């Protein structure tokens, strides 16, 4: 199935979930859980915690999916943002960073959405890559590590071997540049 049709199907399933249709939640899960579990695992680095957070994500969708605004964007990007947010929350509550490396992908269910799907999402991804590409290499790395590995300012500074203030200013400038580049 092409990404646009997949995304449309996911939107319809989410609309049914919002009406309390539990089988629709299973349909959403089947299409999105590998992507979301990948995100939780990448940030948390630990399977049992990643499973806990995955459960939280789908239960939060179950309880509040009416809040998914179909006009606002790609449903899988919305779900990915929830998984990302909750994983970071969990990481900060735990207070320490993951220690183990993450296993590589172990094969993905057929029909699962591995990309964030949709033409508009693809367009946004292209745009973001272009804008990230305009940053200095070190800043690109800091932005990616912060978002994808869940590093704090302190950890980023330590890792790059720069003072905390320098790292903060790199990140803040990078965010400001990204915003102006992407909203252009």
């Amino acid at each position, binding site marked *: 199935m092409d990404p646009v049709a997949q995304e449309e199907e996911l939107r319809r399933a989410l609309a049914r979930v919002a009406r*309390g249709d*539990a*089988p629709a939640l*299973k349909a959403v*899960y089947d299409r999105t*859980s*590998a*992507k979301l*579990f*990948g*995100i939780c695992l*990448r940030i948390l680095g630990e399977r049992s915690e*990643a*499973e806990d957070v*995955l*459960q939280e994500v789908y*239960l939060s969708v*179950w309880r509040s999916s009416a809040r998914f605004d179909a006009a*606002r*964007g*790609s449903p899988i*990007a919305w779900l*990915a*943002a929830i998984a*990302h*947010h909750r994983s*970071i929350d969990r990481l*900060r509550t735990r207070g320490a960073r993951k220690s183990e490396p993450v*296993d590589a992908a*172990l*094969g*993905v*269910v057929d029909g*699962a959405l591995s*990309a*964030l799907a949709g033409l508009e*999402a693809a367009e*946004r*991804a292209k*745009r*973001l*890559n272009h804008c*990230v590409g305009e940053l200095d290499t070190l800043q690109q790395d800091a932005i*990616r590590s*912060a*978002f*994808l590995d869940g*590093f*704090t*300012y302190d950890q980023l500074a330590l890792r790059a071997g720069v003072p905390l203030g320098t790292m903060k*200013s*790199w990140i*803040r*400038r990078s*965010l*400001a*540049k*990204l*915003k*102006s580049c992407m909203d252009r």
Partner: protein
Amino acid sequence: MSDSPVTPEETDPIDPAAEYVLGVLEGEARDRAAEKAVEDPAFRARIEAWQGRLAPLLEDVAPVNPPPRAWRRIARSLTPAAAQVAVKPKLLDRVEVWRWATAGLAAATAVLCVLVLRTTPAAPLASPSAAGGSVLATALTAPGGRVLFVAVMDPLRDGVTVIPVHTVTGAGRYPELWIIPAGGLPKPVGMIKAASPLRVSSRALSIAEERTVLAISLEPPGGSPTGAPTGPVIASGSLARS
């Protein structure tokens, strides 16, 4: 950094919404942002905008199949939610449901069956076989074996619907529901009006699981003054999946 010309956006103070979404904040700074996200719709809108901007970075994350137990856990937590969503408004009007019950465990089981059956057409997955889950419930029986109440847990364990089977009266005392964890002390859940099915919500219920005991004691109006049962325990039952 020093060799690039300073542009206006570099001198603007950065929006904490951006740092919050990126994930670099910790401790109080993250807590503050989380609170602001709840209180301030404009801040929330900026968070959503940043989520939209940064989400494409997640394209790079390799998908990993979660183990099958991950879905089973989710299904267990939500199966009765379908039931609740579909049936709750009607349940409270359905006073006759509990009046049908006469006495004994068979009657209590009948009440549960009615609840479950009423639920099924509107929420197909609510049937235990479809999703591997079921309703956590118990008949609260008097020491002599008479069923006085039926209690059905909400799926998220934040509430319980108590259906009186028999009217309970005590001189100026009223039924109070307790939850008793294995090896633990009773925690108060809430007062029960004797006349109609009642949903009681309490954080205390989050510890509910199979075999957790619910009990009812008779207490002064407003509940036990000490936080522990002071009156006679008139009924108890152990939660089971039905």
